[in-house]
């Protein structure tokens, strides 16, 4: 049975809808019909500005949406062919930390301040791998060495506040990888770190992925990070995927006006943001999306039909999907590419 499933994707998310029921009866559609997959050994990047729904997407996969007010209202999330959304809470807890490891943006606050690093690594091993305390601590030392601590024996007795941000993120990676997960979800793992440390942490993640033979879902709003490590990229806006392509394809041939806008503001290697042409305006809150294309209010290429209906995510070629009327064949229903590039010049107001 396992053998049969190996042919499928590692993670397959279909039509995921995660809504927040807010006061006053409004609904925030933080994730609104997102579908994607991750293959074994693949690094998939999820990019988008703040508030586009990246974290909620990843927390939905972990089923860690605070409920209430949040709720996964529709969709399917399959890990290795196993549907996660119908698992009992108990079964889901066996997936978290064991099949899927997760690291977060804020290394300063993501570790519990009152327990030692060793304790926090060991408890995952004790829980999932049924190790004794002694075995778990021995394994913790080993893991800390793997993530680059020379003084691992001492570090297990130290508290988070005794480590720098970069070191804490290494410790978080050690926790996330401790049970040899199939998937590592990293939600902005480098955003809070110094530029020099950022590169080290990224390298470490890639190294870990290879060593543990896992896949990565990397969430970031930094296209520089994406270019460095991702195999494939999804661009998210307003709770939806607006473009998806192989990394080289996306960087050489970006299609969606939002993506090209983001590219205009990649920080250069020294970390100085060269806002050549940043996108005017801000991401709309998830309870107040505009009619039609959600990017329309900020789009340079907006056309009349854009404000009437939301375009589908459709293929422009086999490895490239985009949600934009500029690339959709007339009639609009998710067809194939034909002469899309010429239509890029179409402008209307």
């Amino acid at each position, binding site marked *: 049975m396992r053998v049969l499933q190996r042919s499928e994707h590692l993670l397959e998310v279909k039509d995921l809808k995660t809504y927040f029921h807010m006061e006053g009866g409004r609904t925030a559609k933080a994730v609104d019909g997102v579908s994607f997959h991750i293959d074994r050994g693949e690094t998939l990047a999820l990019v988008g500005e703040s508030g586009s729904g990246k974290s909620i997407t990843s927390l939905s996969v972990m089923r860690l949406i605070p409920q209430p007010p949040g709720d996964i209202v529709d969709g399917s999330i399959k890990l290795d062919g196993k549907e996660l959304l119908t698992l009992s809470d108990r079964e889901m807890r066996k997936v978290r930390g064991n099949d899927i490891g997760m690291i977060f943006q804020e290394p300063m606050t993501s570790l*519990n301040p009152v327990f030692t690093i060793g304790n926090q690594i060991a408890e995952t091993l004790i829980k999932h791998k049924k190790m004794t305390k002694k075995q778990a601590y021995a394994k913790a030392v080993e893991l800390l060495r793997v993530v680059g601590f020379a003084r691992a024996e001492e570090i297990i007795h130290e508290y988070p506040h005794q480590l720098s941000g970069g070191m804490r993120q290494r410790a978080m990676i050690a926790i996330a990888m401790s049970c040899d997960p199939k998937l590592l979800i990293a939600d902005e793992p480098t955003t809070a770190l110094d530029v020099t440390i950022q590169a080290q942490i990224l390298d470490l993640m890639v190294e870990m992925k290879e060593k543990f033979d896992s896949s990565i879902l990397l969430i970031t709003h930094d296209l520089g990070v994406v270019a460095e490590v991702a195999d494939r990229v999804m661009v998210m806006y307003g709770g939806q995927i607006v473009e998806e392509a192989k990394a080289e394809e996306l960087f050489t041939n970006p299609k969606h006006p939002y993506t090209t806008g983001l590219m205009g503001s990649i920080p250069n290697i020294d970390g100085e943001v060269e806002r050549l042409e940043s996108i005017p305006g801000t991401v709309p809150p998830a309870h107040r999306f505009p009619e039609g294309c959600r990017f329309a209010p900020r789009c340079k290429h907006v056309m009349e039909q854009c404000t009437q209906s939301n375009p589908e995510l459709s293929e422009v070629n086999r490895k490239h999907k985009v949600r934009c009327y500029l690339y959709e064949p007339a009639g609009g229903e998710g067809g194939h590419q034909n002469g899309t590039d010429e239509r890029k010049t179409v402008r209307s107001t």
Partner: protein
Amino acid sequence: MHRYIIRRTLQFIPMLFLVTVVVFALAKAAPGDVLSGEMLDPNIPHEVLEERREALGLNDPLPVQYWSWLTSVAQGDFGNSMQYTGRSVMDLIQSRIMNTFYLSLFALGVTLAIAIPIGIYSATRKYSLFDYGATTFAFLGLATPNFFAALLAIWLLSFQFGWFPAQGSTSAIGLTGFELFIDKLRHLVLPGFTLGLASTAMYMRYMRTEILEIKGSDFIRTAQAKGLSNNSVLYKHTLRNALIPIITLLGVEFGLLLSGAVITENVFNYPGLGTLFLNSIQNRDYPVIMAINLILAVSILVGNLLADIFYAVVDPRIRYD
């Protein structure tokens, strides 16, 4: 950490000194002295009183008086009581202090045993019927004056139902061993609960707020993402952090143990420091007043010291240097 504790203890010494000065000064600033009462007695000639003043050193300059008071206090000698003629102050206090200590400990036990579980339960079931019930109880508790609750308890549980004694600390002389223990415990119930319930509301709300705040923190999300059980997330990761301020508060509370019970002790006529204190004030028994004042002030200082030490023990983030 040992160095931190030692340093913190050393800082305690000048504070202690200051407290003795204040206690002494307050006693001196109050109108009258130990002989004022006798001055009204026309049978004692004025010259005799003057002589006794001179003999007691009451006419010496203040620093000299302070120093002689301090040196005898340091040796455990608080002088003699004026109202219970001939009894030493130390003797009087020794007969009362343990009663107050038991009462306060009982009350603290009541507070924690009720406040912590209810606080936790309320927080995990925020906005449930239970949570609203606990909140209502808390505000009622906060709004009810202590003496009123005490009178209510006496009327209902002692006079109406006769379950518990409402007066004193023992009912029969000559009880020993286990019987004496039970008898003392029964006498503790009413004053202990009245005193304990008074701070329950505060601790309960504190616990609830603290847990709710910690539940939203990043490291709790990490704990959940590790696949830990709900119990482990609540009782290990959340509670350990939520208890830090509570434990610190306990240090301070410990300092208040002896002084917290003055009103309650008097309502229940419980023979503790509080009744002795009020009694001494009414009789201008200055040696006793000074001694109790000093004991209370020192216990509060010690409580604060304990709070700091507890804090350093339970929160690894405290810097020791």
